[in-house]
Protein backbone atom coordinates (compact mmCIF):
# COMPACT_ATOMS: atom_id res chain seq x y z
CA UNK A 1 0.00 0.00 0.00
CA UNK A 2 2.93 2.28 0.62
CA UNK A 3 4.09 2.89 -2.92
CA UNK A 4 0.84 3.35 -4.80
CA UNK A 5 1.92 6.66 -6.28
CA UNK A 6 4.93 5.09 -7.84
CA UNK A 7 2.83 2.24 -9.17
CA UNK A 8 0.55 4.75 -10.89
CA UNK A 9 3.40 6.18 -12.91
CA UNK A 10 4.95 2.75 -13.23
CA UNK A 11 1.71 1.48 -14.77
CA UNK A 12 1.75 4.16 -17.40
CA UNK A 13 5.42 3.52 -18.04
CA UNK A 14 4.76 -0.19 -18.35
CA UNK A 15 1.97 0.42 -20.83
CA UNK A 16 4.28 2.44 -23.05
CA UNK A 17 6.96 -0.21 -22.69
CA UNK A 18 4.46 -2.92 -23.55
CA UNK A 19 3.54 -0.95 -26.67
CA UNK A 20 7.18 -0.72 -27.64
CA UNK A 21 7.59 -4.45 -27.18
CA UNK A 22 4.68 -5.29 -29.49
CA UNK A 23 6.54 -5.90 -32.75
CA UNK A 24 3.58 -5.45 -35.10
CA UNK A 25 2.53 -2.22 -33.42
CA UNK A 26 6.04 -0.77 -33.57
CA UNK A 27 6.59 -1.81 -37.18
CA UNK A 28 3.19 -0.53 -38.31
CA UNK A 29 3.55 2.77 -36.50
CA UNK A 30 7.10 3.26 -37.81
CA UNK A 31 6.17 2.63 -41.44
CA UNK A 32 3.10 4.85 -41.21
CA UNK A 33 5.03 7.68 -39.56
CA UNK A 34 7.76 7.32 -42.17
CA UNK A 35 5.21 7.51 -44.99
CA UNK A 36 3.64 10.60 -43.43
CA UNK A 37 7.07 12.21 -43.18
CA UNK A 38 7.80 11.37 -46.81
CA UNK A 39 4.45 12.78 -47.92
CA UNK A 40 4.96 16.01 -45.97
CA UNK A 41 8.52 16.47 -47.16
CA UNK A 42 7.84 15.39 -50.74
CA UNK A 43 9.12 18.62 -52.38
CA UNK A 44 12.39 18.26 -50.46
CA UNK A 45 12.84 14.54 -50.97
CA UNK A 46 11.79 14.11 -54.59
CA UNK A 47 14.82 14.41 -56.89
CA UNK A 48 12.73 15.56 -59.87
CA UNK A 49 9.43 17.18 -60.74
CA UNK A 50 6.97 14.26 -60.78
CA UNK A 51 5.15 15.77 -63.75
CA UNK A 52 8.19 16.70 -65.89
CA UNK A 53 8.26 14.55 -69.02
CA UNK A 54 11.38 13.65 -70.93
CA UNK A 55 10.61 11.26 -73.73
CA UNK A 56 14.29 10.71 -74.55
CA UNK A 57 14.76 8.74 -71.33
CA UNK A 58 11.43 6.93 -71.20
CA UNK A 59 11.16 3.50 -69.59
CA UNK A 60 14.54 3.60 -67.88
CA UNK A 61 15.04 0.67 -65.51
CA UNK A 62 15.97 1.25 -61.83
CA UNK A 63 19.54 2.29 -61.11
CA UNK A 64 20.75 -1.16 -60.00
CA UNK A 65 19.59 -2.84 -63.20
CA UNK A 66 21.37 -2.89 -66.48
CA UNK A 67 20.88 0.37 -68.34
CA UNK A 68 19.76 2.22 -65.20
CA UNK A 69 20.97 5.71 -64.33
CA UNK A 70 21.92 6.89 -60.84
CA UNK A 71 19.95 10.14 -61.15
CA UNK A 72 16.75 8.16 -61.74
CA UNK A 73 16.99 5.74 -58.83
CA UNK A 74 13.79 3.86 -59.62
CA UNK A 75 13.89 4.53 -63.35
CA UNK A 76 11.28 6.38 -65.41
CA UNK A 77 7.81 5.67 -66.78
CA UNK A 78 6.49 5.60 -70.33
CA UNK A 79 6.60 9.43 -70.52
CA UNK A 80 10.06 9.66 -69.06
CA UNK A 81 8.88 10.96 -65.65
CA UNK A 82 11.10 10.10 -62.65
CA UNK A 83 9.51 7.06 -60.95
CA UNK A 84 10.89 7.74 -57.47
CA UNK A 85 9.51 11.28 -57.49
CA UNK A 86 6.11 10.02 -58.62
CA UNK A 87 6.18 7.39 -55.89
CA UNK A 88 6.99 10.01 -53.25
CA UNK A 89 4.25 12.37 -54.41
CA UNK A 90 1.86 9.45 -54.80
CA UNK A 91 2.08 8.75 -51.06
CA UNK A 92 0.31 12.08 -50.53
CA UNK A 93 -2.76 10.90 -52.43
CA UNK A 94 -2.85 7.58 -50.58
CA UNK A 95 -2.58 9.22 -47.18
CA UNK A 96 -5.04 12.04 -47.91
CA UNK A 97 -7.60 9.57 -49.17
CA UNK A 98 -6.90 7.20 -46.27
CA UNK A 99 -7.16 9.78 -43.50
CA UNK A 100 -10.07 11.79 -44.91
CA UNK A 101 -12.16 8.72 -45.65
CA UNK A 102 -11.41 7.35 -42.21
CA UNK A 103 -12.53 10.61 -40.61
CA UNK A 104 -15.75 11.03 -42.60
CA UNK A 105 -16.85 7.41 -42.30
CA UNK A 106 -15.74 7.36 -38.66
CA UNK A 107 -17.92 10.32 -37.74
CA UNK A 108 -20.95 8.99 -39.61
CA UNK A 109 -20.63 5.40 -38.41
CA UNK A 110 -19.81 6.19 -34.78
CA UNK A 111 -22.64 8.70 -34.51
CA UNK A 112 -25.14 6.18 -35.84
CA UNK A 113 -23.73 3.48 -33.58
CA UNK A 114 -23.90 5.68 -30.47
CA UNK A 115 -27.46 6.75 -31.21
CA UNK A 116 -28.75 3.25 -31.95
CA UNK A 117 -26.89 1.66 -29.06
CA UNK A 118 -27.80 4.27 -26.47
CA UNK A 119 -31.47 4.88 -27.21
CA UNK A 120 -32.44 1.35 -28.21
CA UNK A 121 -36.06 0.57 -29.12
CA UNK A 122 -37.47 2.18 -32.23
CA UNK A 123 -34.45 4.44 -32.72
CA UNK A 124 -32.22 1.39 -32.73
CA UNK A 125 -34.50 -0.43 -35.17
CA UNK A 126 -34.18 2.54 -37.52
CA UNK A 127 -30.38 2.66 -37.19
CA UNK A 128 -30.17 -1.09 -37.74
CA UNK A 129 -32.31 -0.65 -40.85
CA UNK A 130 -29.93 1.96 -42.25
CA UNK A 131 -26.95 -0.27 -41.48
CA UNK A 132 -28.63 -3.19 -43.21
CA UNK A 133 -29.39 -1.04 -46.26
CA UNK A 134 -25.73 -0.10 -46.45
CA UNK A 135 -24.56 -3.68 -45.94
CA UNK A 136 -26.76 -4.93 -48.76
CA UNK A 137 -24.99 -2.64 -51.26
CA UNK A 138 -21.77 -3.84 -52.88
CA UNK A 139 -19.59 -0.96 -51.73
CA UNK A 140 -16.93 -0.76 -54.41
CA UNK A 141 -19.46 -1.25 -57.22
CA UNK A 142 -21.58 1.64 -55.93
CA UNK A 143 -18.44 3.76 -55.68
CA UNK A 144 -17.58 2.83 -59.27
CA UNK A 145 -21.04 3.71 -60.50
CA UNK A 146 -21.21 7.04 -58.67
CA UNK A 147 -17.73 8.14 -59.70
CA UNK A 148 -18.28 7.21 -63.33
CA UNK A 149 -21.43 9.35 -63.21
CA UNK A 150 -19.96 12.42 -61.49
CA UNK A 151 -16.44 12.10 -62.84
CA UNK A 152 -13.35 11.27 -60.82
CA UNK A 153 -11.48 13.74 -58.66
CA UNK A 154 -9.76 13.57 -55.29
CA UNK A 155 -12.73 15.24 -53.61
CA UNK A 156 -15.46 13.02 -55.09
CA UNK A 157 -13.44 9.92 -54.33
CA UNK A 158 -13.01 10.87 -50.67
CA UNK A 159 -16.69 11.77 -50.32
CA UNK A 160 -17.91 8.61 -52.01
CA UNK A 161 -15.64 6.31 -50.00
CA UNK A 162 -16.36 8.21 -46.78
CA UNK A 163 -20.11 8.09 -47.29
CA UNK A 164 -19.99 4.38 -48.07
CA UNK A 165 -17.61 2.67 -45.69
CA UNK A 166 -18.99 3.61 -42.26
CA UNK A 167 -20.78 0.31 -41.67
CA UNK A 168 -18.13 -1.36 -39.53
CA UNK A 169 -17.93 1.64 -37.19
CA UNK A 170 -21.69 1.67 -36.80
CA UNK A 171 -21.98 -2.05 -36.07
CA UNK A 172 -19.14 -2.18 -33.54
CA UNK A 173 -19.92 1.11 -31.78
CA UNK A 174 -23.59 0.17 -31.51
CA UNK A 175 -22.81 -3.15 -29.83
CA UNK A 176 -20.22 -1.65 -27.50
CA UNK A 177 -22.59 1.16 -26.54
CA UNK A 178 -25.36 -1.31 -25.77
CA UNK A 179 -23.09 -3.03 -23.30
CA UNK A 180 -22.11 0.17 -21.55
CA UNK A 181 -25.41 2.04 -21.46
CA UNK A 182 -26.68 -0.28 -18.71
CA UNK A 183 -23.64 0.29 -16.49
CA UNK A 184 -24.44 1.91 -13.18
CA UNK A 185 -22.21 4.89 -13.89
CA UNK A 186 -24.48 5.78 -16.80
CA UNK A 187 -27.50 5.53 -14.50
CA UNK A 188 -25.70 7.76 -12.00
CA UNK A 189 -25.13 10.39 -14.69
CA UNK A 190 -28.78 10.19 -15.70
CA UNK A 191 -29.89 10.73 -12.10
CA UNK A 192 -27.50 13.68 -11.96
CA UNK A 193 -29.52 15.22 -14.78
CA UNK A 194 -27.17 14.64 -17.71
CA UNK A 195 -28.59 14.78 -21.24
CA UNK A 196 -28.18 11.89 -23.67
CA UNK A 197 -25.50 13.64 -25.78
CA UNK A 198 -23.58 14.52 -22.61
CA UNK A 199 -23.63 10.91 -21.43
CA UNK A 200 -22.63 9.59 -24.84
CA UNK A 201 -19.74 12.00 -25.13
CA UNK A 202 -18.44 11.95 -21.56
CA UNK A 203 -19.28 8.53 -20.19
CA UNK A 204 -19.64 6.17 -23.14
CA UNK A 205 -17.21 7.51 -25.75
CA UNK A 206 -14.05 6.98 -23.61
CA UNK A 207 -15.04 3.33 -23.16
CA UNK A 208 -15.58 2.76 -26.88
CA UNK A 209 -12.67 4.78 -28.20
CA UNK A 210 -10.25 1.88 -28.47
CA UNK A 211 -12.74 -0.01 -30.65
CA UNK A 212 -13.09 3.04 -32.91
CA UNK A 213 -9.32 3.41 -33.22
CA UNK A 214 -8.86 -0.20 -34.26
CA UNK A 215 -11.55 0.04 -36.93
CA UNK A 216 -10.18 3.39 -38.08
CA UNK A 217 -6.83 1.86 -38.99
CA UNK A 218 -8.48 -1.03 -40.79
CA UNK A 219 -10.79 1.33 -42.68
CA UNK A 220 -7.85 3.51 -43.61
CA UNK A 221 -6.10 0.53 -45.18
CA UNK A 222 -9.32 -0.29 -46.96
CA UNK A 223 -9.64 3.26 -48.31
CA UNK A 224 -6.04 3.27 -49.57
CA UNK A 225 -6.72 0.04 -51.44
CA UNK A 226 -10.00 1.38 -52.83
CA UNK A 227 -8.27 4.51 -54.10
CA UNK A 228 -5.64 2.39 -55.83
CA UNK A 229 -8.30 0.16 -57.35
CA UNK A 230 -10.41 3.07 -58.59
CA UNK A 231 -7.40 4.90 -59.98
CA UNK A 232 -6.24 1.69 -61.65
CA UNK A 233 -9.62 1.49 -63.36
CA UNK A 234 -9.20 5.07 -64.48
CA UNK A 235 -12.02 6.30 -62.28
CA UNK A 236 -10.05 7.83 -59.47
CA UNK A 237 -7.37 10.45 -59.60
CA UNK A 238 -7.24 12.09 -63.10
CA UNK A 239 -4.17 11.35 -65.19
CA UNK A 240 -1.14 13.54 -64.57
CA UNK A 241 -1.43 13.52 -60.76
CA UNK A 242 0.81 10.80 -59.37
CA UNK A 243 -1.18 8.09 -57.56
CA UNK A 244 0.05 4.61 -56.86
CA UNK A 245 -3.02 2.99 -58.37
CA UNK A 246 -2.71 5.09 -61.49
CA UNK A 247 0.98 4.24 -61.75
CA UNK A 248 0.11 0.54 -61.81
CA UNK A 249 -2.55 1.16 -64.42
CA UNK A 250 -0.13 3.06 -66.66
CA UNK A 251 2.61 0.48 -66.15
CA UNK A 252 0.29 -2.36 -67.02
CA UNK A 253 0.85 -1.93 -70.79
CA UNK A 254 4.55 -2.64 -70.24
CA UNK A 255 4.03 -5.42 -67.71
CA UNK A 256 6.08 -7.99 -69.62
CA UNK A 257 8.87 -5.81 -70.88
CA UNK A 258 9.27 -3.56 -67.83
CA UNK A 259 7.67 -5.38 -64.86
CA UNK A 260 9.22 -2.95 -62.34
CA UNK A 261 6.65 -0.32 -63.44
CA UNK A 262 4.00 -2.43 -61.74
CA UNK A 263 6.14 -3.94 -59.02
CA UNK A 264 7.33 -0.71 -57.45
CA UNK A 265 3.96 0.99 -56.77
CA UNK A 266 2.47 -2.43 -56.00
CA UNK A 267 5.00 -3.04 -53.26
CA UNK A 268 4.45 0.49 -51.93
CA UNK A 269 0.70 -0.11 -51.60
CA UNK A 270 1.31 -3.51 -50.06
CA UNK A 271 3.68 -2.13 -47.42
CA UNK A 272 1.49 0.83 -46.48
CA UNK A 273 -1.66 -1.28 -46.19
CA UNK A 274 0.16 -3.97 -44.25
CA UNK A 275 1.60 -1.36 -41.89
CA UNK A 276 -1.82 0.16 -41.20
CA UNK A 277 -3.28 -3.26 -40.53
CA UNK A 278 -0.40 -4.16 -38.21
CA UNK A 279 -0.97 -0.92 -36.34
CA UNK A 280 -4.66 -1.73 -35.98
CA UNK A 281 -3.97 -5.26 -34.71
CA UNK A 282 -1.39 -3.88 -32.32
CA UNK A 283 -3.84 -1.29 -30.98
CA UNK A 284 -6.41 -4.01 -30.44
CA UNK A 285 -3.95 -6.26 -28.59
CA UNK A 286 -2.71 -3.43 -26.42
CA UNK A 287 -6.10 -2.03 -25.54
CA UNK A 288 -7.59 -5.32 -24.43
CA UNK A 289 -6.10 -6.21 -21.05
CA UNK A 290 -6.29 -2.63 -19.82
CA UNK A 291 -9.40 -0.85 -18.58
CA UNK A 292 -11.66 -3.56 -17.16
CA UNK A 293 -11.10 -4.06 -13.46
Amino acid at each position, binding site marked *: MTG*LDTTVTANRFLRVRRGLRHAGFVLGAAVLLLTIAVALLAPLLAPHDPLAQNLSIRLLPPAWMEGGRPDHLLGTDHLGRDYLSRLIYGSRISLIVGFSTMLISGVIGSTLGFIGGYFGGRVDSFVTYIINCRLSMPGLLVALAVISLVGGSLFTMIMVLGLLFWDRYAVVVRTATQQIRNA*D*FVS*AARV*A*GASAPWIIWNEIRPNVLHHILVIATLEMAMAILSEASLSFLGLGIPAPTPSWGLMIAEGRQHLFAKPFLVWIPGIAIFILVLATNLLGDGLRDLSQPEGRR
Partner: protein
Amino acid sequence: MTRLLDIQNVSLAFRQRTGLFSPPNLIPAVRSASLHVDAGEVVAVVGESGSGKSTLAKMVLRLLTPDTGTIAIDGKPAQSLGPREFARLVQPVFQDPYSSINPKRTLAEIIQTPLKIAGGVSARECEERARDLFERVGLPMRLFHSYPNQISGGQRQRVAIARALILRPKLLVCDEPTSALDVSVQAQILELFNELKQDFGLTYLFISHNLAVVERIADRIAVMYRGEIVEQGATDAFFAAPTHPYSKMLLSSVLPPIPGRPLPTVSRVFELNTPRGSQP
Protein backbone atom coordinates in the same frame (compact mmCIF):
# COMPACT_ATOMS: atom_id res chain seq x y z
CA MET B 1 -41.24 15.99 10.45
CA THR B 2 -41.42 16.59 6.74
CA ARG B 3 -42.19 13.76 4.42
CA LEU B 4 -39.20 13.66 2.08
CA LEU B 5 -40.25 10.70 -0.01
CA ASP B 6 -43.82 9.59 -0.44
CA ILE B 7 -44.56 6.55 -2.58
CA GLN B 8 -48.28 5.99 -3.12
CA ASN B 9 -49.73 2.83 -4.66
CA VAL B 10 -46.95 2.48 -7.18
CA SER B 11 -47.09 -0.40 -9.66
CA LEU B 12 -44.88 -1.38 -12.56
CA ALA B 13 -45.00 -4.35 -14.88
CA PHE B 14 -42.29 -5.22 -17.36
CA ARG B 15 -43.38 -5.96 -20.89
CA GLN B 16 -41.82 -9.04 -22.38
CA ARG B 17 -42.10 -9.20 -26.15
CA THR B 18 -42.85 -12.71 -27.32
CA GLY B 19 -43.20 -12.03 -31.01
CA LEU B 20 -43.61 -9.22 -33.49
CA PHE B 21 -47.40 -9.25 -33.51
CA SER B 22 -48.41 -11.06 -30.35
CA PRO B 23 -49.35 -8.82 -27.40
CA PRO B 24 -46.51 -8.43 -24.87
CA ASN B 25 -46.48 -10.51 -21.69
CA LEU B 26 -46.86 -8.41 -18.58
CA ILE B 27 -44.58 -9.40 -15.71
CA PRO B 28 -45.51 -7.47 -12.59
CA ALA B 29 -42.40 -6.25 -10.75
CA VAL B 30 -43.92 -3.94 -8.19
CA ARG B 31 -47.56 -4.16 -7.15
CA SER B 32 -49.25 -1.24 -5.50
CA ALA B 33 -46.44 -0.37 -3.14
CA SER B 34 -46.80 2.49 -0.67
CA LEU B 35 -43.94 3.71 1.45
CA HIS B 36 -42.83 7.01 2.88
CA VAL B 37 -39.55 8.27 4.25
CA ASP B 38 -39.43 11.25 6.59
CA ALA B 39 -36.54 13.68 6.58
CA GLY B 40 -33.64 12.36 8.64
CA GLU B 41 -34.98 8.83 8.65
CA VAL B 42 -33.38 5.62 7.40
CA VAL B 43 -35.86 3.28 5.80
CA ALA B 44 -34.70 -0.13 4.63
CA VAL B 45 -36.45 -2.15 1.96
CA VAL B 46 -35.57 -5.82 2.37
CA GLY B 47 -36.36 -8.74 0.12
CA GLU B 48 -34.80 -11.40 -2.08
CA SER B 49 -33.82 -11.00 -5.70
CA GLY B 50 -36.89 -10.64 -7.86
CA SER B 51 -38.92 -9.15 -5.02
CA GLY B 52 -39.10 -5.79 -6.79
CA LYS B 53 -36.98 -3.86 -4.31
CA SER B 54 -34.46 -2.68 -6.92
CA THR B 55 -37.26 -1.79 -9.32
CA LEU B 56 -38.78 0.35 -6.58
CA ALA B 57 -35.43 2.08 -6.06
CA LYS B 58 -35.10 2.69 -9.81
CA MET B 59 -38.53 4.30 -9.87
CA VAL B 60 -37.58 6.61 -7.01
CA LEU B 61 -34.47 7.51 -9.00
CA ARG B 62 -36.65 8.13 -12.06
CA LEU B 63 -34.70 5.55 -14.03
CA LEU B 64 -38.03 3.77 -14.51
CA THR B 65 -41.48 5.30 -14.72
CA PRO B 66 -44.28 3.69 -12.71
CA ASP B 67 -47.34 2.47 -14.60
CA THR B 68 -49.67 3.73 -11.90
CA GLY B 69 -49.30 5.52 -8.58
CA THR B 70 -47.35 8.60 -7.58
CA ILE B 71 -43.95 9.31 -6.12
CA ALA B 72 -43.52 12.66 -4.39
CA ILE B 73 -40.19 14.07 -3.31
CA ASP B 74 -40.10 16.91 -0.83
CA GLY B 75 -43.82 17.40 -1.37
CA LYS B 76 -43.62 17.72 -5.16
CA PRO B 77 -44.45 15.00 -7.69
CA ALA B 78 -41.15 13.51 -8.83
CA GLN B 79 -42.07 13.75 -12.51
CA SER B 80 -42.67 17.51 -12.21
CA LEU B 81 -39.13 18.22 -11.04
CA GLY B 82 -36.55 19.39 -13.55
CA PRO B 83 -33.51 17.11 -13.94
CA ARG B 84 -31.21 19.46 -12.02
CA GLU B 85 -33.72 20.16 -9.29
CA PHE B 86 -34.20 16.41 -8.92
CA ALA B 87 -30.45 15.76 -8.81
CA ARG B 88 -30.08 18.17 -5.88
CA LEU B 89 -32.68 16.22 -3.93
CA VAL B 90 -31.94 12.57 -4.71
CA GLN B 91 -28.69 10.74 -5.51
CA PRO B 92 -27.91 7.04 -5.88
CA VAL B 93 -25.32 4.58 -4.58
CA PHE B 94 -25.38 1.34 -6.54
CA GLN B 95 -24.45 -2.23 -5.74
CA ASP B 96 -21.65 -3.22 -8.07
CA PRO B 97 -18.57 -1.11 -7.36
CA TYR B 98 -17.10 -2.22 -10.68
CA SER B 99 -19.96 -1.01 -12.80
CA SER B 100 -20.85 2.10 -10.81
CA ILE B 101 -17.82 4.20 -11.71
CA ASN B 102 -16.47 4.89 -15.19
CA PRO B 103 -13.19 2.95 -15.64
CA LYS B 104 -11.80 5.54 -18.06
CA ARG B 105 -12.10 8.57 -15.78
CA THR B 106 -9.95 9.58 -12.85
CA LEU B 107 -11.48 9.45 -9.39
CA ALA B 108 -11.37 13.24 -9.26
CA GLU B 109 -13.37 13.48 -12.48
CA ILE B 110 -15.87 10.85 -11.34
CA ILE B 111 -16.64 12.65 -8.11
CA GLN B 112 -17.10 15.99 -9.85
CA THR B 113 -19.43 14.60 -12.53
CA PRO B 114 -22.79 15.61 -10.97
CA LEU B 115 -21.48 19.08 -10.17
CA LYS B 116 -20.22 19.52 -13.73
CA ILE B 117 -23.60 18.47 -15.07
CA ALA B 118 -25.42 20.83 -12.72
CA GLY B 119 -23.14 23.66 -13.81
CA GLY B 120 -22.84 27.07 -12.26
CA VAL B 121 -19.74 26.20 -10.26
CA SER B 122 -16.22 27.20 -11.25
CA ALA B 123 -13.79 24.43 -12.11
CA ARG B 124 -11.70 25.42 -9.11
CA GLU B 125 -14.57 25.18 -6.66
CA CYS B 126 -15.61 21.89 -8.24
CA GLU B 127 -12.23 20.40 -7.51
CA GLU B 128 -12.14 21.97 -4.05
CA ARG B 129 -15.41 20.32 -3.11
CA ALA B 130 -14.33 17.01 -4.62
CA ARG B 131 -11.15 17.11 -2.55
CA ASP B 132 -13.07 17.77 0.66
CA LEU B 133 -15.39 14.85 0.02
CA PHE B 134 -12.54 12.61 -1.06
CA GLU B 135 -11.04 12.99 2.38
CA ARG B 136 -14.39 12.89 4.12
CA VAL B 137 -15.25 9.45 2.73
CA GLY B 138 -11.89 8.17 3.92
CA LEU B 139 -9.87 7.98 0.73
CA PRO B 140 -6.16 8.85 0.80
CA MET B 141 -5.49 12.08 -1.11
CA ARG B 142 -2.68 10.54 -3.14
CA LEU B 143 -5.29 8.49 -5.01
CA PHE B 144 -7.19 11.63 -6.12
CA HIS B 145 -5.98 11.49 -9.69
CA SER B 146 -5.83 7.69 -9.95
CA TYR B 147 -7.98 5.53 -12.18
CA PRO B 148 -10.55 3.06 -10.82
CA ASN B 149 -8.48 -0.01 -11.74
CA GLN B 150 -5.92 1.03 -9.14
CA ILE B 151 -8.26 0.83 -6.16
CA SER B 152 -10.20 -1.89 -4.33
CA GLY B 153 -13.93 -2.58 -4.31
CA GLY B 154 -14.44 -0.86 -0.98
CA GLN B 155 -12.56 2.21 -2.16
CA ARG B 156 -14.63 2.28 -5.34
CA GLN B 157 -17.77 2.31 -3.24
CA ARG B 158 -16.36 5.26 -1.29
CA VAL B 159 -15.84 7.09 -4.58
CA ALA B 160 -19.45 6.37 -5.54
CA ILE B 161 -20.59 7.75 -2.18
CA ALA B 162 -18.51 10.90 -2.60
CA ARG B 163 -20.02 11.40 -6.06
CA ALA B 164 -23.51 11.01 -4.62
CA LEU B 165 -22.80 13.62 -1.95
CA ILE B 166 -21.21 16.36 -4.02
CA LEU B 167 -24.56 17.99 -4.84
CA ARG B 168 -25.52 17.89 -1.15
CA PRO B 169 -28.71 15.90 -1.82
CA LYS B 170 -31.31 15.29 0.87
CA LEU B 171 -32.10 11.68 0.02
CA LEU B 172 -29.62 8.94 -0.77
CA VAL B 173 -31.02 5.86 -2.49
CA CYS B 174 -28.64 3.00 -1.73
CA ASP B 175 -29.28 -0.16 -3.75
CA GLU B 176 -27.45 -3.01 -1.99
CA PRO B 177 -24.38 -0.83 -1.47
CA THR B 178 -22.44 -3.42 0.54
CA SER B 179 -23.54 -6.79 -0.79
CA ALA B 180 -20.61 -7.07 -3.21
CA LEU B 181 -18.09 -6.35 -0.45
CA ASP B 182 -16.23 -8.42 2.14
CA VAL B 183 -17.69 -8.40 5.64
CA SER B 184 -14.83 -6.31 7.00
CA VAL B 185 -15.20 -3.76 4.19
CA GLN B 186 -18.98 -3.88 4.54
CA ALA B 187 -18.61 -2.85 8.17
CA GLN B 188 -16.42 0.08 7.15
CA ILE B 189 -18.92 1.30 4.56
CA LEU B 190 -21.90 0.90 6.90
CA GLU B 191 -20.04 2.91 9.52
CA LEU B 192 -19.35 5.58 6.90
CA PHE B 193 -23.06 5.75 6.02
CA ASN B 194 -23.82 6.23 9.71
CA GLU B 195 -21.31 9.08 10.10
CA LEU B 196 -22.36 10.82 6.88
CA LYS B 197 -25.97 10.73 7.98
CA GLN B 198 -25.11 12.93 10.95
CA ASP B 199 -22.68 15.22 9.11
CA PHE B 200 -24.80 15.86 6.03
CA GLY B 201 -28.25 15.55 7.57
CA LEU B 202 -29.02 12.75 5.13
CA THR B 203 -32.07 10.60 4.69
CA TYR B 204 -31.61 7.08 3.33
CA LEU B 205 -33.71 4.69 1.35
CA PHE B 206 -31.62 1.58 1.84
CA ILE B 207 -32.20 -1.55 -0.26
CA SER B 208 -30.79 -4.87 0.93
CA HIS B 209 -31.42 -8.58 0.88
CA ASN B 210 -29.86 -9.09 4.29
CA LEU B 211 -31.69 -8.03 7.43
CA ALA B 212 -28.48 -8.20 9.45
CA VAL B 213 -27.02 -5.39 7.37
CA VAL B 214 -29.85 -2.93 7.88
CA GLU B 215 -30.51 -3.83 11.48
CA ARG B 216 -28.22 -1.22 12.92
CA ILE B 217 -28.78 1.66 10.56
CA ALA B 218 -32.49 1.48 9.73
CA ASP B 219 -35.20 3.30 11.69
CA ARG B 220 -37.94 1.51 9.83
CA ILE B 221 -38.01 -1.65 7.75
CA ALA B 222 -40.24 -2.59 4.84
CA VAL B 223 -40.22 -6.18 3.61
CA MET B 224 -40.93 -6.83 -0.06
CA TYR B 225 -42.03 -10.16 -1.43
CA ARG B 226 -43.06 -10.80 -5.03
CA GLY B 227 -43.54 -7.13 -5.79
CA GLU B 228 -45.56 -6.29 -2.71
CA ILE B 229 -44.61 -4.64 0.52
CA VAL B 230 -45.85 -7.34 2.85
CA GLU B 231 -44.85 -5.76 6.12
CA GLN B 232 -43.41 -2.52 7.40
CA GLY B 233 -42.70 -1.17 10.81
CA ALA B 234 -40.22 0.39 13.18
CA THR B 235 -37.00 -1.62 13.35
CA ASP B 236 -37.28 -2.50 17.03
CA ALA B 237 -40.86 -3.64 16.75
CA PHE B 238 -40.09 -5.54 13.57
CA PHE B 239 -37.20 -7.49 15.03
CA ALA B 240 -39.11 -8.17 18.21
CA ALA B 241 -42.16 -9.56 16.43
CA PRO B 242 -42.28 -9.85 12.66
CA THR B 243 -45.79 -10.70 11.55
CA HIS B 244 -45.59 -11.87 7.94
CA PRO B 245 -44.25 -15.41 7.44
CA TYR B 246 -41.78 -14.19 4.84
CA SER B 247 -40.40 -11.62 7.29
CA LYS B 248 -39.96 -14.38 9.83
CA MET B 249 -38.13 -16.44 7.27
CA LEU B 250 -35.86 -13.54 6.33
CA LEU B 251 -35.09 -12.97 9.97
CA SER B 252 -34.32 -16.61 10.65
CA SER B 253 -32.02 -16.71 7.62
CA VAL B 254 -29.54 -14.43 9.34
CA LEU B 255 -26.75 -16.67 10.55
CA PRO B 256 -25.09 -15.39 13.74
CA PRO B 257 -21.47 -16.48 14.28
CA ILE B 258 -22.40 -18.64 17.22
CA PRO B 259 -21.34 -22.27 16.89
CA GLY B 260 -23.50 -25.22 17.82
CA ARG B 261 -26.79 -23.95 16.42
CA PRO B 262 -28.61 -25.87 13.72
CA LEU B 263 -29.38 -24.19 10.41
CA PRO B 264 -32.84 -22.60 10.52
CA THR B 265 -35.74 -24.24 8.74
CA VAL B 266 -36.96 -22.25 5.78
CA SER B 267 -40.00 -23.10 3.76
CA ARG B 268 -41.34 -20.80 1.14
CA VAL B 269 -45.05 -21.38 0.94
CA PHE B 270 -46.80 -18.14 1.79
CA GLU B 271 -50.16 -16.83 1.02
CA LEU B 272 -50.01 -13.38 -0.44
CA ASN B 273 -52.17 -10.45 0.55
CA THR B 274 -51.80 -11.29 4.19
CA PRO B 275 -52.27 -8.39 6.63
CA ARG B 276 -50.05 -5.48 5.79
CA GLY B 277 -48.37 -5.40 9.17
CA SER B 278 -48.18 -2.40 11.41
CA GLN B 279 -48.34 0.93 9.63
CA PRO B 280 -46.61 3.45 11.86
